[in-house]
C-alpha cells in the first residue's frame, strides 16, 4: 500500500526528539470535516508538557545556536527536501484534517513549506551584525543573536504552511521552537516535526505540542522559559495574548484577521479581474486571513461585472476535497460552518 493511502497513525507530542504521550495521558480525536468521520487520536498537551518542551528546548538552545551556520543551513535545506519527498503524504494528511481541496494542499501548501525551509536555510549563513565606527577610541560592532526559545501558536486554515512560515526563519536564526498546532488540525505539524528529526535537526530544537489554545497555548504564553510568541489567528485571541504576554514581557508577533478590499477599476482586464475576484474569496474556502472578502467595483462596470461574477461563482460547488478536480472543499468544522452561515 503506498504511504499516501496508509491509515493515519495516532498523533503524539514531539518533545526532545521523541514521540510521546501527554503527561496527563489525555487524547482527543481529530475529525475529517468533509465526512465528519474520525481520522485518529491525538495526544493532548497540557501545562506539564509545555514545561517538558521548554526544558528540552532550553537545553538544546546553546549547542544549536552555536552550531556552525553552514551546518544549520544544511539541515534546514534537508527539511525542505524531505517535505517535497513526502508531498503526497503531507498533502493527503492536510486535506483529511482541514477539508481543503487536495489541489491546494498538494500543489500550493506543500511547495510553500519547502520554499520556506529552502529560502531561510540560506539566511543561516548570512545573518550578520555591523561594524559601526562611532568613536576612534573604540572598536564598536553589533552582533545579531537569536532570542532563545520561540513559541509558535498557529491556526487551522494553513496548518502546514504556518509551520514553515514560523519555524524556518526562527530556526535559521538559531532559536529553538515549540509549535502548538491548532487543535482541529495537528497532523501535518506532527509529521513535519518527525521529518525535521530525520533531516538531522537535533532533539529539542523543534517540539510539537498539539492541544487546546486555552490550555497548552495559554501555558506557553505564560511560561517564563519562552522568550517570544509568534501567533497567527483571530484579532480577539491576539488581544488576549498580548495582555497575557505582558506578565513575562514576552516579545510577540501577531498576524491577525482581515477584511481585505479587492478593488476593480473600470479600466482593468476584466477577465483577469473576474478570476482574481473569484480566487480572492474561494481560495482556501475563504478561510484565509488575506481573503479578498470586500470586492469594490467601479460603478460604470458594476452591473456587468457582478452578473459575470455570479455566473462564475455558480460553477464553484463544494465537492470531495480528495478529488484533484475539486476547487472548493469542506469548511474546517461544523461549528465554523454554522458561524459562516450566521
Amino acid at each position: 500500500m503506498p504511504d499516501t493511502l496508509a491509515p493515519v497513525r495516532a498523533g503524539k507530542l514531539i518533545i526532545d526528539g521523541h514521540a510521546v504521550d501527554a503527561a496527563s495521558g489525555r487524547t482527543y480525536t481529530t475529525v475529517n470535516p468533509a465526512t465528519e468521520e474520525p481520522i485518529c487520536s491525538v495526544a493532548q498537551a497540557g501545562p506539564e508538557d509545555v514545561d517538558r518542551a521548554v526544558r528540552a528546548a532550553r537545553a538544546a538552545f546553546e549547542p544549536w545556536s552555536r552550531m556552525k551556520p553552514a551546518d544549520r543551513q544544511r539541515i534546514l535545506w534537508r527539511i525542505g527536501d524531505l517535505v517535497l519527498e513526502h508531498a503526497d503524504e503531507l498533502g493527503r494528511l492536510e486535506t483529511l484534517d482541514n477539508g481543503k481541496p487536495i489541489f491546494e494542499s498538494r500543489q500550493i501548501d506543500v511547495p510553500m513549506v519547502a520554499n520556506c525551509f529552502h529560502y531561510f536555510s540560506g539566511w543561516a549563513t548570512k545573518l550578520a551584525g555591523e561594524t559601526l565606527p562611532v568613536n576612534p577610541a573604540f572598536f564598536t560592532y553589533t552582533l545579531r543573536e537569536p532570542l532563545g526559545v520561540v513559541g509558535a501558536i498557529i491556526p487551522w486554515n494553513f496548518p502546514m504552511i504556518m509551520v514553515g512560515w514560523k519555524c524556518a526563519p526562527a530556526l535559521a536564526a538559531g532559536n529553538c521552537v515549540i509549535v502548538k498546532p491548532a487543535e482541529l488540525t495537528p497532523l501535518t505539524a506532527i509529521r513535519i516535526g518527525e521529518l525535521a528529526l530525520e533531516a538531522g535537526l537535533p532533539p529539542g530544537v523543534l517540539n510539537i505540542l498539539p492541544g487546546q489554545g486555552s490550555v497548552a497555548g495559554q501555558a506557553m504564553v505564560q511560561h517564563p522559559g519562552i522568550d517570544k510568541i509568534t501567533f497567527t489567528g483571530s484579532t480577539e485571541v491576539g488581544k488576549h495574548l498580548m495582555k497575557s504576554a505582558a506578565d513575562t514581557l514576552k516579545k510577540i508577533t501577531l498576524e491577525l484577521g482581515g477584511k481585505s478590499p479587492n478593488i476593480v477599476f473600470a479600466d482593468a482586464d476584466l477577465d483577469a479581474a473576474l478570476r482574481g475576484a473569484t480566487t480572492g474569496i474561494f481560495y482556501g474556502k475563504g478561510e484565509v486571513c488575506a481573503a479578498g472578502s470586500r470586492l469594490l467595483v467601479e460603478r460604470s462596470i458594476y452591473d456587468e461585472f457582478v452578473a459575470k461574477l455570479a455566473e462564475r461563482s455558480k460553477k464553484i460547488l463544494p465537492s470531495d476535497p480528495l478529488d484533484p478536480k475539486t476547487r472548493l472543499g469542506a469548511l474546517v468544522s461544523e461549528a465554523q460552518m454554522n458561524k459562516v452561515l450566521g
Partner: protein
Amino acid sequence: MLEGVDNQMRVAQEEIFGPVLSVIPFDDADDAVKKANDIPYGLASGIWSKDVKKAHAVARRLQAGTVWINAYNFYDAGMPFGGYKASGFGRDLGPESLREYTQVKSVWVSIE
C-alpha cells in the same frame, strides 16, 4: 455573494472567514481608497487596472500590509507578510521576519 453592500454594514466590516463576498460599488479612485481603508483591519488588498500610474498611486494610499496589483493571493518565503492596523504587527517571511527572531547586541572594545 452579497451585492450592493454598503461599506458600513456588518457583512462589510466583520471578518466572516468563509466563502462569503460583499460587493461594494465606488465612484472613482478617491472613493475606492476611502472605502478600502474605512475598516479596522489592514492585512491585504488587491488592485485591478491597466493604468500603471493609478495602480501604483492607489497602492501607496492603501492601509494594508500587502498590495497585489493585477493579481491576488500570491505568497513567497522571500516576501514579507503581515498587517497594518488591527491586523497585527511584526512580519512573517522575507528578510523582515528575521528581525522578529533575533536581537542585537552592541559591543564596545576600548582600543586606546
